[in-house]
C-alpha cells in the first residue's frame, strides 16, 4: 500500500520536516539569541541568559552580583582582589585586572565576559574578541557613565529592567545629595590616595566630591591621579584633606597625618580637618556609591 495514502501520514511527515527545521533554527538562535552594543560601540552576540559569566574587574563583579542576586553560581570567574560581596571571594580568579590570564578565562568556557575600559588592557580584550568570545565592555571610569554601565551590564546579563530600576534609584539618591549640597559652603578639599598622589579632575573621586558640594583643590589637573609636589599643596592650602584608604591600611593614614601635622600653616592642620575615609564603595559604579558619597558628606560636613 503506498505510504502517502493517508492524510495522517502526510501530516506526520510535514510536521517532522518543519520540526527539524525549527529545531535547527532555534538551535542557531540559542547560540546567539540577541545582539547588543557595548560602550565601545562593538556589537556583541549573546545568549538570552548567560550562565557562565566572567567579570574582569572587582567593580564589575560587584555589579554582576547585584543583578544575579541569589544566582551567584552564574558567575564562573572574577578578577583578583574581588571582595564584595564576600561570597565572590570563593570564585576562581582570572588574575589581576590589568593583566588577566587568557588561558584561565578560556578554560572557564564563558558565555559572557564583562570588561571595563578603565583598567583592562585594550589589547587583551581585543585578543579575547578575536577568539570569538562574547565581551561586553563598559566604561566604569567616569561618573556620568555609571548609569550607562549599570544599564549595559544588566542588559548583558539579561535583566534590563533591573538595570533601569537601579539607575532610577541611583539618580534619586544623587539628586537628594545634590540638593543638600546647594546650600553648603564649598569646601576646598584635597583627596589623597598615597604618598603624593591625589585625585585629579578625571577621577571618580573628583566627581563624588563635586556631588557633595565641595571643590577639588586639584580639579584643574587633567590626570586621573597626579603626583603632586609638597610645595604646591602648601600653596594651594586646602580647607580639608581626606585620605582615602582601602582595606585596613590604618598605618598609612597615621603616617600621612603625622606628615601633614609638620606644616601647621596649613588650614587643614589648624582646623584639624584631616580625615580618614575607609571606603572602597566610593569607587564602585554600583548603588553602593551612594553609601560612599554619603560617608564623604558626613565626614566633611558632619551629620546633617
Amino acid at each position, binding site marked *: 500500500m503506498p505510504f502517502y495514502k493517508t492524510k495522517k501520514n502526510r501530516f506526520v511527515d510535514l510536521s517532522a520536516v518543519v520540526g527539524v527545521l525549527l529545531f535547527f533554527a532555534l538551535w542557531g538562535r540559542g547560540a546567539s539569541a540577541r545582539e547588543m552594543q557595548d560602550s565601545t560601540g562593538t556589537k556583541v552576540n549573546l545568549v538570552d541568559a548567560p550562565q557562565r559569566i566572567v567579570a574582569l574587574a572587582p567593580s564589575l563583579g560587584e555589579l554582576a552580583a547585584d543583578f544575579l542576586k541569589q544566582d551567584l553560581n552564574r558567575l564562573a570567574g572574577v578578577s*583578583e582582589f574581588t571582595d564584595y560581596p564576600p561570597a565572590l571571594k570563593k570564585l576562581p*580568579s*582570572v*588574575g*589581576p585586572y*590589568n*593583566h*588577566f*590570564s*587568557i*588561558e*584561565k578565562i*578560556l*578554560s572557564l*568556557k564563558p558565555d559572557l565576559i564583562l570588561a571595563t575600559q*578603565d*583598567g583592562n*588592557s*585594550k*589589547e*587583551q580584550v581585543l*585578543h579575547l574578541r*578575536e*577568539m570569538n568570545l562574547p565581551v561586553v565592555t563598559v566604561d566604569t571610569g567616569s561618573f556620568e557613565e555609571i548609569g550607562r554601565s549599570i544599564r549595559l551590564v544588566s542588559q548583558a546579563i539579561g535583566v534590563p529592567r533591573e538595570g533601569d530600576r537601579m539607575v532610577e534609584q541611583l539618580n534619586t539618591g544623587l539628586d537628594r545629595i545634590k540638593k543638600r549640597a546647594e546650600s553648603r559652603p564649598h569646601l576646598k578639599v584635597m583627596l589623597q590616595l598615597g604618598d603624593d598622589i591625589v585625585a585629579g579632575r578625571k577621577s571618580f573621586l573628583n566627581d563624588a566630591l563635586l556631588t557633595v558640594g565641595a571643590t577639588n583643590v586639584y580639579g584643574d589637573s587633567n*590626570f*586621573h*591621579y597626579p*603626583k603632586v609636589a609638597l610645595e604646591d599643596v602648601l600653596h594651594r592650602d586646602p580647607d580639608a584633606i581626606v585620605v582615602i584608604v582601602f582595606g585596613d591600611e590604618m598605618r598609612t593614614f597615621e603616617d600621612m597625618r603625622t606628615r601633614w601635622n609638620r606644616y601647621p600653616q596649613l588650614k587643614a592642620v589648624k582646623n584639624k580637618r584631616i580625615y580618614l575615609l575607609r571606603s572602597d564603595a566610593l569607587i564602585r559604579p554600583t548603588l553602593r556609591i551612594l553609601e560612599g558619597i554619603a560617608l564623604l558628606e558626613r565626614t566633611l560636613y558632619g551629620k546633617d
Partner: protein
Amino acid sequence: MEKIRVSKLVTTFGFGAAAWVVTAVIALSWGAVNDPSFEVIRQVRLPRAILASAIGVGLSVAGAALQALFANPLCEPYTLGISSGAGLGAVLGISFGFQWMVAGLTGTAFLGAIVFSVVLYLISLKAKGGNTTLLLAGVMLGFLGSSLVTLWISLSDSNGVQNAMNWLFGDLSRARLGGSLFTVAGVLSLTALLWGEWRNLDGLLMGEEGAAALGVDVRQVRRKVIVLVSLLIGLCVSAGGMIGFIGLVVPHFSRRMIGSLHLRLIPLCAIWGAATLTLADCLARVVVRPYELPVGVVTALIGAPVFLWIMLKRQERES
C-alpha cells in the same frame, strides 16, 4: 680534521633539537590552568610557544653576531641600545594611540628600533676609532632610550603606564597565531642573511685589524651586520618587549659546545635560543599563576648571575 667533527656535529645539534622539542612540549603542557582544553592549547599556548621560539632565535643570533662584530663576548643586543629605541617607539605609540597593529605587533616599536639603528649607523660611518666608539655610542643610546621611557612614564596617566610596564620587560601574552608566524618568517629570513656572513664574522674573531689583514672589508661588513642585527632586534622587541641576556648567554654556551666558527655557531645558537626562551616563558606563566611574570624578569634573574660568572672567569683568565 673535518671528518672527526661530523659525529660531534650530529650529537651536538641532535641534543639541541631534542632540547627544543622537550621545552616546546613542556610549554604546551604547563600553563595557568592545570587541565587545559584543546582550545586553550591551540589558541593560547601554541602561539606563545611559536613566538617564544622565534624571539629566542632572533635574540641569540643577534647576540652572536654582535659579539663577533665587537670581538667582545660581553656584547648583547642591548649594548647597542636598539632595544631601548624599540621600547621607546612602542611606548610613545601607546601614548599617542598610534598602535598600529599588524597581526598583533606594535609597529611603532619597529620604527623606534630603526630610528636608533640609523643613528648608530651614521655614527659607525664616522667611527674611525672603530668598535670602542660604537659600543659607547650604543650604551649611550640605550641610556637615552630608557630615560625617555622613564620620562614618558612619569608624565603620563596611570592606565597607559600599567600596560607599558607589563609589556616593556618582556610580554609574550599578546601572542596570536598570525603575529607569531609573521615573526617566525621575519626572524628566519634575517637569521639566514646573517648566517650567510659567516666567513666575515669568522674573520672578525681576530679583531678588526686581524680581519682586515685576512681580507675582510671591515667597514662594509660592519654596516651590513648592524643593519641586519637592528632589524632582527626591532622585530623581536616589537613582538615581545625587551628580553635580556638570551643574546649573551646562549652564544656563550653554544661556543663551548661547538666552537666559535659561525657556520655552525649560528644555527646552534638559534636552536638553543628557541629552547631557552620557550622554557623561560613557560616558567613566567607558571611560577606565580594566575599572575604572570614578565619574561624579561625570568631571563634576567637567571641570566644576570651567569653574566657575572662569565665576566669573573674572564678576569681570572686575563690575570
